[in-house]
């Protein structure tokens, strides 16, 4: 079975207000050494066992739907290779 993980992150030049809000809360935990926090999405995809081109299909899914190339970058990682 092919399991694929797609990580989607805002591009570095795009302000991430969620990350900023988390960063702003850290001193309240007593954590003062953090320079920046960026928040992204992790998407786990499980393919049918018969699929042979899971990585290729995942690239399409990530490029056309999971990430918006105007503001986000993505990486595709195949977790289990057996059916890929």
């Amino acid at each position, binding site marked *: 079975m092919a399991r694929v993980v797609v990580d989607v992150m805002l591009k570095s030049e795009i*302000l991430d*207000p969620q990350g900023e809000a988390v960063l702003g809360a850290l001193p309240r935990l007593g954590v003062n050494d953090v320079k920046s926090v960026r928040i992204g999405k992790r998407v786990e995809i499980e393919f049918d066992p018969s699929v042979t081109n899971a990585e290729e299909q995942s690239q399409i899914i990530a490029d056309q*739907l999971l990430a918006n190339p105007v*503001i986000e970058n993505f990486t595709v990682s195949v977790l289990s290779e057996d059916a890929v």
Partner: protein
Amino acid sequence: MSARIGIVTFPGSLDDRDAARAVRLGGAEPVALWHDDAMLRSVDAVFLPGGFSYGDYLRCGAIARFSEVMGLVRDAAGRGMPVLGVCNGFQVLCESHLLPGALVRNAHLRYRNRPARLRVETAATAWTNAYASGAEVVFPAKHGEGRYVADEATLDRLEANGQVVFRYLDNPNGAMRDIAGVSNEAGNVVGLMPHPEHAVEALTGPSTDGLGVVASITAYLNEGAAR
């Protein structure tokens, strides 16, 4: 015959009825379009209303882009049909690559719900020709993901081409260069975050400035019919 303006209802659309009402008050004929029907019902123009299509899951407008009706809207827009996207409709147009840029979370992370003062930067679009360039209008803004972003080269190109259509006078969300609305190069596709369809009656809106959008599209379509 009055202009037929199609108004698309997606699952989660909220402002489709107000859009229809505004179109009617402006003297055009609203035509209901359904997201899952690949039919444009002989409309002359399309209005994508605000709301939370598909629950705003993944990104605002990202799922709506793949609906049945959007394939037709994309083709029709490419042939010059006027398309307006307001709020979520603007997000759908950006996600569909019919407009440049993207709309992301407001810089202050809060939902903003108040009238927005805007400047109409260009009257050279299908949806703004009834305004004077530089006119100030007040439309309600209500959004959590309305901050317009694009890379610097794209922003420069938009400015140079006159594709910045509406600009905030009091930027409510951190939008780059105070951009509230943009058009495509041809000027037939326009998107903006604030809601002209909520500014059509003194009783319920902060102004009646939104009627200018309907007047614009009506004039644009009549001119086309006369050509």
